[in-house]
């Protein structure tokens, strides 16, 4: 287009500068860890155990999530029922659900004194013990089964309705449809869904911290935390950071190789008309799956709400202070995310399609595989000589959280920006709207919806994050998730339940506020 005649614009420089900052935070911090680790020892037996456990739990979590998601997605694709839209929305919720809240809910259902254990004891069996591999995998499935379901549902809905109509006119039985239409689709979609979930589970920290632990259930991330926080053994932390980075790199390489499905989230309310699946047995089967998944997702959340209502009345002041800190951190993090995402998205779109734009986008996506613990360790090392890291705990948390939500923000902003430039770019060019004027008068107003969504996501993710803050925080400056973890560790369960409900409300509330703000009065 005509813009190529212009010199490399300030928009591109700003984007490149931000990308360099993101690169420094993700890869630079790893270098800092290396630099500080004087000698790199070999991996000890405990380290190998952590590597094995990380890989094993990620494999199991991904396999289970994907396997269970197939029948659920199939049922959602071919059944119309009241509450279908609500269930699909609910499937998006775990994304902004604080991990520690979900863990508390899962404990209330599957824990030693949870609902299921109570029933087992009543029937004369032993109560469940979910600490360890079981609990880690359970929590990961809780978080990723909905994601897998949405990805696979997208696959189902991508099969043109005409094919099902043709199949019906040819008298296909459900088995024929599965062979001719559904299995080819699943073969294309499942590897991508599996890899995405595998990648997410390899960088799991909060789940392992709360439900794992001990020599037999420690992830590499947790091992970094322990080496750093309890032993202050930087060379071991560095070594483990390298291992974590290598695992992430391998997983990310896999993701590039299998073509990860894009999460559009749009159009999931469509329904596939199915003439073959009207039999009573298939209907009962679908109903059972939907009921099971709804119960699996809703019961823990219901328990958090029920248990929390009692504790909410007399929350200790420390929890309220932590909540205030968390709100500030999350708002700051959302703002920082905007300062990172907007210049990068603008530069990516301005560069058009090509190597430079792909590279920039790749840097933004790096944080998906990056580990917040590695970033945190590196920042601690860098800050330590010049300032008190504990004093900077909250700003650092906000910054790291902003980087972690960057990939999702870019996923929302870049396609939207491309659409705006496609529809209005030439008009803006012909009116000589350039630089900041173009951003202020054209791009920002038309980006309201994706911006609101991205800000809401960043705020909610930061609100519920229990990662970097655990490395840095001193006891007086905890965020709400950290304070909640402390209450749980001290077995003050009633207060913990109240704090969990507060955290849940704040996370969902912040997301709702931003997302809603983006939709209000958005002229289309």
């Amino acid at each position: 287009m005509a813009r190529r005649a212009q010199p490399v614009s300030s928009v591109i420089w700003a984007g490149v500068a931000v990308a360099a900052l993101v690169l420094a935070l993700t890869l630079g911090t790893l270098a800092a860890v290396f630099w500080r680790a004087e000698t790199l020892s070999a991996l000890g037996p405990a380290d190998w155990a952590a590597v094995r456990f990380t890989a094993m739990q990620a494999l199991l979590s991904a396999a289970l999530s994907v396997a269970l998601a197939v029948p659920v997605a199939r049922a959602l694709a071919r059944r119309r029922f009241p509450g279908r839209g609500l269930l699909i929305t609910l499937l998006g919720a775990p994304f902004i659900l604080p991990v520690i809240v979900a863990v508390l809910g899962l404990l209330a259902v599957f824990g030693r004194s949870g609902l299921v254990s109570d029933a087992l004891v009543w029937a004369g069996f032993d109560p469940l013990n979910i600490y360890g591999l079981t609990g880690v995998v359970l929590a990961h499935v809780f978080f990723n089964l909905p994601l897998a379901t949405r990805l696979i549902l997208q696959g189902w809905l991508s099969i043109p309705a005409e094919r099902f109509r043709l199949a019906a006119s040819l008298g296909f039985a459900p088995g024929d449809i599965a062979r001719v239409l559904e299995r080819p689709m699943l073969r294309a979609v499942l590897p991508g869904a599996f890899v995405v979930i595998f990648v997410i589970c390899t960088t799991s920290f909060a789940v392992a911290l709360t439900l794992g632990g001990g020599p037999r259930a420690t992830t590499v991330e947790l091992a970094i935390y322990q080496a750093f926080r309890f032993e202050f053994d930087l060379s071991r932390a560095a070594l483990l950071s390298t291992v974590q980075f290598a695992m992430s790199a391998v997983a990310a390489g896999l993701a590039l190789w299998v073509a990860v499905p894009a999460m559009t989230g749009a159009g999931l309310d469509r329904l596939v008309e199915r003439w073959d699946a009207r039999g009573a047995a298939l209907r009962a089967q679908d109903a059972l799956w939907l009921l099971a998944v709804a119960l699996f997702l809703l019961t823990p959340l219901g328990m958090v709400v029920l248990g929390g209502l009692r504790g909410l009345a007399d929350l200790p002041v420390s929890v309220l202070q932590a909540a205030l800190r968390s709100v500030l951190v999350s708002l700051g993090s959302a703002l920082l995310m905007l300062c990172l995402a907007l210049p990068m998205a603008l530069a990516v779109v301005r560069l058009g399609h090509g190597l430079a734009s792909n590279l920039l986008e790749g840097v933004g996506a790096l944080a998906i595989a990056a580990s917040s613990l590695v970033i945190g360790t590196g920042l601690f090392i860098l800050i330590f000589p010049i300032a008190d890291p504990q004093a900077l705990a909250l700003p650092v948390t906000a910054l790291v959280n902003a980087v972690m939500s960057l990939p999702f923000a870019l996923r929302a902003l870049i396609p939207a920006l491309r659409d705006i430039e496609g529809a209005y770019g030439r008009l803006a060019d012909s009116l000589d709207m350039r630089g900041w004027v173009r951003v202020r008068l054209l791009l920002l107003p038309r980006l309201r919806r994706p911006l609101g969504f991205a800000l809401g996501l960043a705020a909610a993710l930061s609100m519920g994050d229990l990662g970097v803050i655990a490395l840095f925080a001193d006891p007086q400056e905890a965020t709400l998730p950290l304070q909640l973890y402390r209450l749980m560790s001290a077995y003050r369960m009633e207060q913990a339940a109240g704090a969990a409900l507060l955290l849940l409300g704040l996370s969902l509330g912040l997301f709702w506020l931003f997302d809603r703000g983006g939709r209000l009065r958005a002229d289309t």
Partner: protein
Amino acid sequence: MLILEKLVIGHEGFELRADLSIAPGARVAVIGPSGAGKSTLLDAIAGFLPPKSGRVIFQGRDLGPLAPGERPVSMLFQDNNLFPHLSAAQNVALGLRPNLRLSKAEWQAVEACLDHVGLAGFGARKPGALSGGQRSRVALARVLLRDRPLMLLDEPFSALGPALKAEMLALVRELAVETGATLLMVTHDPGDAVMIGDQTVLVAEGQVHAPVETGELFSDPPEALRAYLG
């Protein structure tokens, strides 16, 4: 005078040649089969598409180095001529200052232009609250306000009904006469060509033909035009 000097425009595997001049103040219809390159020709003049070779010269000045917004051109596209999040008055005002920082007198000029196209009092409305015809009028008010000597219209009224389209063409003709601007309008309807004015340029088979009097052209159409008219 608008001169297309040995202009060669290439776009996704096809090539269009133009070597002609258009008199100042002429109102010219650009006609031809779809896919012949009518819009491509306008894009090249407006600066959206750099030519492979040749020059676009207007009033003795080579437009080549100028970005689209710097050219002496007002352009109306097929769609998306207004920003839906800005009011009618703001959309018009962009024609004067892209940053929307207008003085009081300039805002009055905006109002006067809206008044001129029959939209007095509609300034505060957003495009979503206007009819298709009214939206076209807002876009024309901006063309009037910009007062650039070259008006390029790329079938901006093709979504309107016949009566409304005739009304808009009359308004365009009036504005062009009033401002003395040179007008190039892409259309696929010979009726439009007659309505807009003097001359017609035929774009067919990779060639932009020199302008001819519209009446003459249609009374004795050349081979390429005959094939198009059927």
